[in-house]
C-alpha cells in the first residue's frame, strides 16, 4: 500500500538537498509556532502578574520577530515544496510519456485510449492537488502534533497526562473512520472513473448517437453513473459529518479537563495560571492537525490509488526493447525478404502462416486479398511493430530482430487508411517526417500527390489549422495530406496501406502518375482494394486466410483462372 509512495521517493532524488533544507525550515516553523504559546504564558506570569513592564516590551519584541520569521519561512516552505513538487511532477510526466512511447502497438490495441490518457492527466493532476494543499500540511501537522505533546509534558506533566486521556478514544474513532472512509472513497473513485470512460466514448461517438437519435439512451446511462458517484460521495459525507465534529468535541473535553483539573492544581499552588493558558493554546494546536491529517488521509488514499495506476503503466515492459547490440541502419537499399513467416497475437489464432516473398530494391509489390486476410499485418511486421512468431524477415540481408526498430522506420514511409493528423497547420503536418524541409519541399510533395490544389483553396493555405477531427478537411483530403507527409520523408521503402481508398479516381490517377517518378529506385508495397491502383505493380501477391495463394504480374494472373481474376471481374463487371 505504501509502496507507490516509496517509489515516488526515487523521483525526489535530484532534489535531496533542497528537501533536506525544506525539512529544516518546516521543523523551525513548527518549533516557532509551538513556542509562541510560551510567550503569552511567560508574559502573564512574569510580566502582568509581577507587574513588570520590561517583560511586556521584551515579549512584544520577541512575538513580532517570531511572527515575521514565521511569515518568511512559510513563504520559503510553501514555494519550496511547490518548486520541488512541480519538478517531481514534471519528471514523472516526462518519464511516463517516454515510457508510453516505448510500449508496443499491442498495448495500445488492448488498452482503452481513455484509460491511458487518464494516467497522464487525471492521475497526475490528482497527485498535483495533494501536493498543492497536502504534503506541506502533512509534514507540518505531524511535526506539530509531536511538538505540542512535548511542550505539554515540559510545562506540566500531570496536566499533560490528564489531557491526553482523550487520546485513546480519539485513536479508536480515527481507526474506525479510516477503515470505513477508505471503502467509501474507493467506491467514489471507481464511480468517477466510470463517468470519465463513459464520457470519453460518448463524446467520441456523439455523431453516431445523434444520427441514431439515441440521446435519451445516452442520457439514461449517464444519469445512472452520475447518481452512483453522488451516492458514493454522500456516503463519505455522512462519515465525515460524524467524525470531524467528534474530534472537535474531544478537544472540548480536553479543554474541560484543563479547566477543572488545571484549576484545581492552580488553587493548590501546584501550577500557574500562565501554564493553564499555555495549555489552552496548545490543545487548540493539537486538535487542528489531527483533523487536517484525517482529511488528508482520504486524499492520500486516492493519490496512492492513482500512483499505483501510473506505476502499473511504467512497469509494463517495453515489449520488444531493441537488443542492446542491435544495429542502426544508416542506409537502406530496400531489399526485403519474408522467409516462412508465421504470426499470431499472444493467445489468439494464427494470422499469417508460412508467408514467403522477396522484393528487390526498386520493385513494387502489391498485396490483395479479402478483409482480414492479413495484409496489414505484413506491414506491421515489416515496420517491426511486432516480431514474427516463426520464420525470419530480412531487410538488406539483415535479420530484423537485430535492427533497431526506430532506425528502420526512419527509412520507411507508411501511409495508412486511417489517417491521423496532429493539431497544427497543414504545413507542420506534412513536415512531420522531415523536420528540416523547406516550404518549397513541402509544396512539391503536396503537388506530387495532388493536395496542393485544395490546400491553396483554403483562406490560410498551408497555414490552415487542422485538429483531432480534421477541422474542415474531408477524409479524402486528409489522406492526401498524409500521403504528402510520407513522400516528403524520402523513404527508401514506401508502404501504401489503402492509402487512397477515399480519394476520387481522377486524383488517384494523378497520384499514380506522380508515383511512377517518385518510386524510381524505391521499394514499395501497395495494399489496395481498388485494383486499378495496383495494375502497375511488378508483382501481385494474393493473400487468403494468412497464406499466399498466388503471385505474379497483373497480366500473368489475369491470363489464367485465378482468385485475382475473380476479384478483378467482381470489380469491373458493370
Amino acid at each position, binding site marked *: 500500500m505504501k509502496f507507490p509512495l516509496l517509489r515516488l521517493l526515487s523521483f525526489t532524488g535530484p532534489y535531496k538537498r533542497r528537501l533536506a533544507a525544506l525539512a529544516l525550515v518546516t521543523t523551525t516553523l513548527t518549533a516557532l509556532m509551538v513556542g509562541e504559546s510560551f510567550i503569552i504564558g511567560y508574559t*502573564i506570569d512574569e510580566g502582568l502578574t509581577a507587574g513588570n513592564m520590561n517583560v511586556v516590551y521584551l515579549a512584544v519584541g520577541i512575538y513580532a520577530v517570531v511572527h515575521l520569521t*514565521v511569515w518568511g519561512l512559510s513563504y520559503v516552505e510553501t514555494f519550496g515544496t511547490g518548486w520541488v513538487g*512541480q519538478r517531481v511532477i514534471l519528471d514523472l510526466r516526462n518519464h511516463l510519456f517516454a515510457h508510453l512511447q516505448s510500449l508496443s502497438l499491442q498495448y495500445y490495441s488492448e488498452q482503452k485510449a481513455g484509460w491511458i*490518457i487518464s494516467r497522464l492527466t487525471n492521475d497526475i493532476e490528482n497527485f498535483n492537488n495533494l501536493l498543492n494543499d497536502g504534503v506541506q500540511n502533512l509534514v507540518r501537522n505531524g511535526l506539530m502534533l509531536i511538538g505540542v505533546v512535548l511542550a505539554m509534558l515540559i510545562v506540566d506533566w500531570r496536566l499533560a497526562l490528564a489531557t491526553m486521556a482523550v487520546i485513546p478514544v480519539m485513536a479508536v474513532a480515527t481507526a474506525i473512520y479510516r477503515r470505513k472512509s477508505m471503502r467509501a472513497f474507493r467506491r467514489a473513485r471507481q464511480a468517477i472513473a466510470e*463517468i470519465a470512460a463513459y464520457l470519453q466514448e460518448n463524446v467520441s461517438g456523439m455523431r453516431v448517437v445523434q444520427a441514431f437519435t439515441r440521446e435519451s439512451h445516452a442520457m439514461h446511462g449517464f444519469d445512472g453513473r452520475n447518481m452512483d458517484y453522488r451516492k458514493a460521495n454522500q456516503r463519505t459525507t455522512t462519515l465525515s459529518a460524524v467524525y470531524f*465534529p467528534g474530534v472537535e468535541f474531544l478537544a472540548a473535553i480536553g479543554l474541560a479537563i484543563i479547566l477543572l483539573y488545571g484549576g484545581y492544581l492552580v488553587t493548590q499552588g501546584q501550577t500557574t495560571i500562565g501554564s493553564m493558558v499555555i495549555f489552552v493554546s496548545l490543545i487548540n494546536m493539537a486538535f487542528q492537525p489531527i483533523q487536517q491529517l484525517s482529511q488528508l488521509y482520504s486524499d492520500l488514499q486516492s493519490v496512492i490509488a492513482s500512483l499505483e495506476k501510473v506505476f502499473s503503466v511504467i512497469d509494463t515492459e517495453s515489449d520488444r526493447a531493441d537488443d542492446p547490440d542491435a544495429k542502426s541502419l544508416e542506409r537502406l537499399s530496400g531489399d526485403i525478404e519474408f522467409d516462412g513467416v508465421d504470426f499470431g497475437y499472444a493467445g489468439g489464432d494464427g494470422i499469417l502462416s508460412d508467408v514467403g516473398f522477396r522484393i528487390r530494391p526498386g520493385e513494387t509489390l502489391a498485396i490483395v486479398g479479402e*478483409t482480414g486476410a492479413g495484409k496489414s499485418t505484413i506491414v506491421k511486421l515489416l515496420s517491426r511493430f511486432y516480431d514474427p512468431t516463426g520464420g525470419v524477415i530480412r531487410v538488406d540481408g539483415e535479420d530484423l530482430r537485430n535492427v533497431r526498430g526506430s532506425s528502420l522506420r526512419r527509412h520507411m*514511409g507508411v501511409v495508412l487508411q486511417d489517417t491521423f493528423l496532429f493539431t497544427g497547420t497543414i504545413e507542420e503536418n506534412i513536415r512531420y517526417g522531415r523536420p528540416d524541409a523547406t516550404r518549397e519541399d513541402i509544396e512539391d510533395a503536396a503537388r506530387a500527390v495532388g493536395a496542393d490544389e485544395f490546400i491553396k483553396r483554403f483562406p490560410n493555405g498551408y497555414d490552415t489549422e487542422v485538429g483531432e477531427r480534421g477541422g474542415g478537411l474531408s477524409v*479524402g483530403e486528409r489522406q492526401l495530406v498524409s500521403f504528402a507527409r510520407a513522400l516528403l520523408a524520402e523513404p527508401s521503402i514506401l508502404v501504401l496501406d489503402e492509402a487512397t481508398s477515399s480519394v*476520387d479516381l481522377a486524383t488517384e490517377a494523378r497520384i499514380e502518375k506522380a508515383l511512377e517518378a517518385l518510386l524510381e529506385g524505391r521499394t514499395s508495397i501497395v495494399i489496395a482494394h481498388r485494383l486499378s491502383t495496383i495494375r502497375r505493380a511488378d508483382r501481385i501477391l494474393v493473400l487468403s486466410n494468412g497464406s499466399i495463394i498466388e503471385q505474379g504480374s497483373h497480366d500473368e494472373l489475369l491470363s489464367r483462372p485465378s482468385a485475382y481474376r475473380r476479384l478483378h471481374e467482381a470489380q469491373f463487371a458493370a
Partner: protein
Amino acid sequence: MKTFLRIMAFAKGNRWLLVVGLVCAAGYTGATLAIPEIVGRGVDRVREFDGGFGLDSTLVWLTAALLGVAALRFLFSGVRRYTTNNLSHVIEYNMRRAFFRRELDLSHSFYDRSSTGELVSRATNDLRVIRFFTGWGMFQMFISVLTLVVVSVILFVKNPALAAIVLSPMPILAFAAWRFASKVHPIFKRIQGRLADVTTSVQENVSGIRVVKSFSREPFERDRFGGRAEGVMNETLAARGLRAFYIPGMTFIPAVSVALLVFFGGRAVIEGSLSLGDFVAFQLYLMQLVWPMQGFGIVVDQGQRALAAGERTFEVLDEDPEVKKPENPIPLPDTPSLGVEFENVSFGYGGDEVLRGASLSVEPGETVAVVGATGSGKSSLLSLVPRFYDPTSGSVKLGGVDTRDLDPAELRRSVGVVPQETFLFSEKVRDNIAFGKPDATDEEIERAAKISGVHEQIMGFPEGYDTMVGEWGITLSGGQKQRIAIARALVKDPRTLLLDDATSSVDAETEKQIQAALSETLSDASSRTTFIVAHRLSTILLADRIAVLDEGRIAEFGTHDELSKRGGVYAEMYGSERRESA
C-alpha cells in the same frame, strides 16, 4: 459574482440545504466563540479563588457549561457538514447532468472544433473543484467573516478602546484578500488552458502512436510534451508564489493584533485598568481568528479556482445548439418514401464555402450516387439531410418539408446514416447493430448483418453476436467495422439511407455481395431513397441517377449512359475506368 450565482442556481429544489447550512454555520461560529468566553471566566475564577480544598462549584458549573456548548457545537457542525456536502453533491450532479445534456444537443460544428479529452476534463476535474468550494469553501468563507464580525463586536463590548487598537490591522486583511483573488484568478484560467494542451498532446500521441512511431518522431513528441508540461509547471509555480506570500500573510495579521494586545493590554493590566481574565479572553479571541483567517486565504484561492472552473463549464453550457427543435414542428408525410430536395444550398465549415448553391431534386425511392473530386463537398451534402449542419443559405427539403421545420429526432429516425469513418461502441456486436432500434429482434439483426455481408464473420467470433467490440473486446478490421455500421443503419429500416463511402475498406468481392444484397432491398422495397457516395464505378452503377459535384455545385445529374455521352466532368472521370476494364 455572476458565475457564482449561476453555480448556486444548480441547487434548485435544495435551497433549504443552503439555509440550514448557513444557520448551522452561524450556530457553530457562536458556540466556538462562546468557548473562550467560558475559559476566560474560568481563569478569572481560578485567580480569585485562593485557599480552600476541593473543587470550586463555580468552576464545575463553568466546566459543565463548556461541555454543553461543545455538545451543541458538535450538533451544529455535524448537521452543517451533512447539509453543505449534500448541497455540493446536488450542485455537482446537476451541473454534470446539464453539461452532458448540452453535449447531446450540440451540433457537429461544435465537435469539429473541440477535443474529447478537454470535454471529459471539464465534466470531471472542473466540476470537482466546484464541489470542493460549494461544500466547504463557501461556508468556511461565511464562518471566517462571521467570526471576524462577532469577535470584533465582543471585543468592542468588552473594551472599546482596546478593541479599536487591537483590531486596527484588520482592514489590511480585506485588501490583501482582494489583491490575492484578482492576481490569482487569471493564473488559474491559464493553468487550465495549459493543462488542456497537455491533454491534447497525450491524446494525440495515444491515438496517433502508429504515425509517431512510423516516422521515428518520438524525441520530437517528447520535447513537445515536455514543453507543454513545463508550461503547466511554470503557471502553477506562479500561483504558488502568490499563495506562499498571501496565505501566511493573512495569518500574520491576527498575530499583529496579538502583539498590539500584549503591548497595550499588558500595560493596562499592570496599571490595573484591565482584568487579567479580560486580557486572557482578548488573547483567546484573537487566537480564534488565526485559523479562520488562514482558512479565509485558502478559501480565496479555492474560490478563484472554482470560479475559473465554473467559467469553463459555462462556456460549454452557453454554446448554442445550432440545430434546434422548431416550436411547431411539421410532421413528416406518412408516405413510404420521401423525396429529397436541395435548393440552392451553400455551406461551409467557417472558412471558404464548400457548397456554393447546390441544387438537386431526388424522387422518392430513387437511388442517387454522388460523385466528385476529393473535397468537392460530397460528405457535406449528405450531412445536411439529417441536419447535422444547417446550410448557410438555401434549404434542404425532405418529403417537401424544410428540414428546419421538422423535429430533429423524427427526422433522424427516418434517416439511416453510414458515415465515412466508422465508430462502434464498446458493447456487444448485437447492441452495436441494434443501436438505432434497441427493440430489434434477433432475426432483424441477423437479416441486416446478412445484407451487409458480415453475418458469417460474426458467427466466427468467439461469442458470435455477443462478442464485445472495441478496445476491450475483439479487434475488428476496417472492413468488418464498415459492414457492421451498414447493418446498424439497415436495421432501423430507414426511409432515407445515406451511404458515405461506406465500402471503401471492403474488398471487391465482398463489396459485390453487399451490392447485390443492397440492390435487392433497394429494388424490392423501392421504398427507400438512397444516397451513395462512392468512387468505384461498380458501386456507382447501382444508382438510378448520378449527381456530379464540382466546385460546390451539382454540375451534372443523370443516368450513367446520359452522363457518359455528355462529355462533361463525369465522362472525364469514369470514361477511363470504363475503357480500361472493358
